C-alpha cells in the first residue's frame, strides 16, 4: 500500500451530512439511506461497501441529485467545495453536474447511447458546459488526450458503442467522467460487470487517471478484495447506516464493528473453504427499522443497551470512526470479552 497522501489536514472537498433518502411505497416509506454523514478529502479515494440493497448506490445517486422516483431525499446537506448541492436551482444544477460531480456508471455496457459515436458523446458533455468549440482540431486533440489517459486507442474516436468491448466501454466512461476535471468522481460499481483481469486493469486505470488529474474519488463496490487494492479509506454501510469508516489497512487488519468483522470474514478465500457466518440472525423490514442499533438483530454481541440507544459515531483514531456501543469507554469490559470471543473462534 502506498503512503496515504491525505492526513486529516487535507481540504474537505465533499461534506455529506445527515443525508436521508426514502423510497415511497404503498405500504410506507422504505428507508434506503438513514442520516449518513461523511467527508471526502482532496485527492482521496474512498470505498463505499456493503451488501446489495444497503443503500450505497442510493447514497451515490443522492449525492449526484439523481435519485429516481419513487425515491426522494428527505433531508441532509451535500457540500461540494463549499457549494450546497441541494439548494441549486435547475439550471445551476445542470451546470454544476459533471463539473462538480461526475459519475462513472454501474452498467457501462448500457451507459453509452447506442446511436451516437463515442466522440459525439464526449463532445456533447464538453459543449454543454463550455459552449460550442470553434476549434474542432483542438477538440479532437483534447479527446485523444483523454483516450490516452485511459489507455484507449485513437481509432475508436469514430466508432459506435456496440463496436467496443466491455472494458473499452468502461474506459470510455472513465474518460468521459474526467473530461471536465470535476472535483469529485463517483464510480458506481464501475468494474462489476467485467472479468477479474479487466476489472483490475480498469481499476488501476481509474486510480492512475485520478492521480494525474487530481480529483477525489468515491468507489462503490462489493468486491472487498479489489477495493483493498485501490482505495485509501473504506466506508462500510449496513441497511442505510454508515457503521464504520476507516483507513483501508485498519479495516482489514483490525475491523472494529461486528458487521465489518463479519463482512471481512465473508470474503471468499482461494486457499481454504470456510462457512459463511453472516447469515446468522434476521434482517429487519426496511420500513420499520429496529430501535437503537440497526445491526442488533444480527449482531452476536448485542445486549439490552443496543436496543435502547442508537450508537453514535465514535472516533477511535484519526480518520477511523465506528458506530457501535462496544467502543464506548463505559463498555470496555464487554469489548474485551467480545474481542476474546473472536480471537477464540
Amino acid at each position: 500500500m502506498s503512503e496515504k497522501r491525505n492526513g486529516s489536514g487535507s481540504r474537505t472537498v465533499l461534506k455529506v451530512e445527515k443525508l436521508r433518502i426514502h423510497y415511497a411505497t404503498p405500504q410506507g416509506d422504505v428507508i434506503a439511506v438513514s442520516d449518513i454523514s461523511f467527508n471526502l478529502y482532496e485527492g482521496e479515494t474512498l470505498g463505499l461497501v456493503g451488501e446489495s440493497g444497503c443503500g450505497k448506490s442510493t447514497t451515490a445517486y443522492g449525492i449526484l441529485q439523481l435519485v429516481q422516483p419513487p425515491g426522494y431525499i428527505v433531508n441532509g446537506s451535500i457540500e461540494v467545495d463549499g457549494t450546497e448541492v441541494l439548494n441549486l436551482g435547475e439550471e445551476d444544477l445542470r451546470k454544476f453536474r459533471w463539473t462538480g460531480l461526475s459519475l462513472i456508471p454501474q452498467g457501462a455496457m448500457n451507459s453509452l447511447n447506442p446511436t451516437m459515436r463515442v466522440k459525439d458523446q464526449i463532445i456533447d458533455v464538453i459543449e454543454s458546459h463550455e459552449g460550442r468549440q470553434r476549434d474542432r482540431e483542438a477538440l479532437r486533440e483534447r479527446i485523444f488526450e483523454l483516450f490516452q489517459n485511459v489507455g484507449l486507442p485513437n481509432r475508436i474516436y469514430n466508432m459506435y458503442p456496440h463496436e467496443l468491448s466491455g472494458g473499452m466501454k468502461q474506459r470510455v466512461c472513465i474518460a468521459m467522467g474526467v473530461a471536465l476535471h470535476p472535483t469529485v468522481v463517483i464510480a458506481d460499481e464501475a468494474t462489476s460487470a467485467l472479468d477479474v483481469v479487466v476489472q483490475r486493469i480498469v481499476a488501476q486505470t481509474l486510480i492512475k487517471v485520478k492521480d494525474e488529474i487530481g480529483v477525489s474519488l468515491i468507489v462503490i463496490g462489493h468486491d472487498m478484495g479489489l477495493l483493498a487494492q485501490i482505495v485509501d479509506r473504506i466506508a462500510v454501510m449496513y441497511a442505510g447506516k454508515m457503521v464504520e469508516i476507516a483507513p483501508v489497512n485498519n479495516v482489514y487488519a483490525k475491523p472494529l464493528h461486528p458487521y465489518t468483522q463479519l463482512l471481512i470474514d465473508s470474503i471468499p478465500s482461494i486457499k481454504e473453504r470456510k462457512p459463511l457466518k453472516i447469515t446468522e440472525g434476521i434482517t429487519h423490514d426496511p420500513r420499520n427499522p429496529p430501535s437503537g442499533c440497526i445491526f442488533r438483530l444480527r449482531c452476536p454481541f448485542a445486549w439490552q443497551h443496543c436496543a435502547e440507544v442508537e450508537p453514535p459515531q465514535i472516533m477511535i483514531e484519526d480518520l477511523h470512526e465506528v458506530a457501535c456501543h462496544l467502543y464506548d469507554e463505559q463498555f470496555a469490559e464487554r469489548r474485551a470479552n467480545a474481542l476474546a470471543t473472536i480471537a477464540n473462534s
Partner: protein
Amino acid sequence: MGGISLNYLVRRLLVFFLTLWVAATLIFIIPRLAPGDPIAAMVARLSYQAGFVENSNAIIEGWKERFGLNDPVYVQYVRFLGGLLQGDLGYSMARFPATVTELVGRALPWTIGLVGISTVIFFVVGNLCGALLAWKRTPRLAKVVIPMSMIFTSIPPLLAGLLLSYTFAFLLGWFPQSYSYGFGMTPALNLEFILNVIHHGTLPAMAIVLVTFGYWALGMRGMMVTIEGEDYMILAQAKGLKPFYVLYRYMIRNAILPQMTALAVSIGTLVNGVVLVEVIFNYNGMGTLIVTALREQDFGLIQGTAFILITTSALAVLIIDLSYPLIDPRISLEGR
C-alpha cells in the same frame, strides 16, 4: 459502421422481384377462378342498354379472341408476365381501347402524393405526440389535449372520411367534396394549381392522419418510457446536458427505431385505408380506379391496379429496409 454490401443489395433485390412474381401469379390466377365471364357480362350490359345486340355470340367470340382468352392458360400466363416485364399491363376491358398503363399512369401520382404526404404527417405528428406524452417536462395542458385528440384512432378510416366530408365540405363548405383538383383546370406546375390540389387533398389526407396518428403516438410513448429507464438516460442526466438535447438526441433518436420497422410493416394496411378514403372523396387515384374496375368486372384493370399497388408497397418496404443502416448504426447490412 453501417453500410450496405453489394451482396446484400443483390439478395434483397432478388427477394423484391420474387415478391412481384408471386404477386403477379396470384393476380393472374385469382380472377380466373372467380365466377362470371367478363366479356359475357359486358355484352349483356350492352344488350341491356340497346335492347338487343345482333350476333352477340360472335361478338363474345371475337373479343375473347382479341384478348387471347381462347389460348391455353399457360400461354396466357407467359404472355401476361412478358407484358408486365415490358410495362404493358394490357387493355382495360370496360374502357377499350384505353390501356391499363394509361389509366394507372393517370391515377397513380395522385395516390402516391396523397399517401406520401399523409404518411409523413401522421408519422411525424404521431411520434412527436407520443414523445411529448412521455417526456417529463411536457406542459400538463399538452398531456391532457394530446390524448383527447386521439379519440379518432378507433374510428375506421371510411367513417372518419364521411364525418369530415359531411362537416367541412357539406355543412361548412370550407373544402371541396370530391375530386383532386377543380373542374376545368389543367394540371400544371403553377401556384394556383398547387394550392388547388392542396385544397382538394386536405380532407382526404386529414381522414388518413386522424385515424392513424394515435397508434403511432401510443407506440412511441411506450418506447419512450422504455428508453427512459435505460442506463444511458441516467448518465445523460448526470452529464448535465440540456433537457431538450437529451429529448431528441438520446430519447427520440433511440425510440424511433422500432417505429420505423412498424412503418414498413404497416404500409400494406395503410393502402387499404387509402382506397376507402379515396372512394369517399371521389379522389381520382388508384383507390377509386380499383373500385371502378371491380364494379365493372374489368379483369385487365383489376390485375393492373393490384399489381401496381403491390409493386409500390414492396418498393416502399425495400426503401425502408435499405435505409436501416443509416438510422441504426448497430444494424449493418454488410455481408459476412
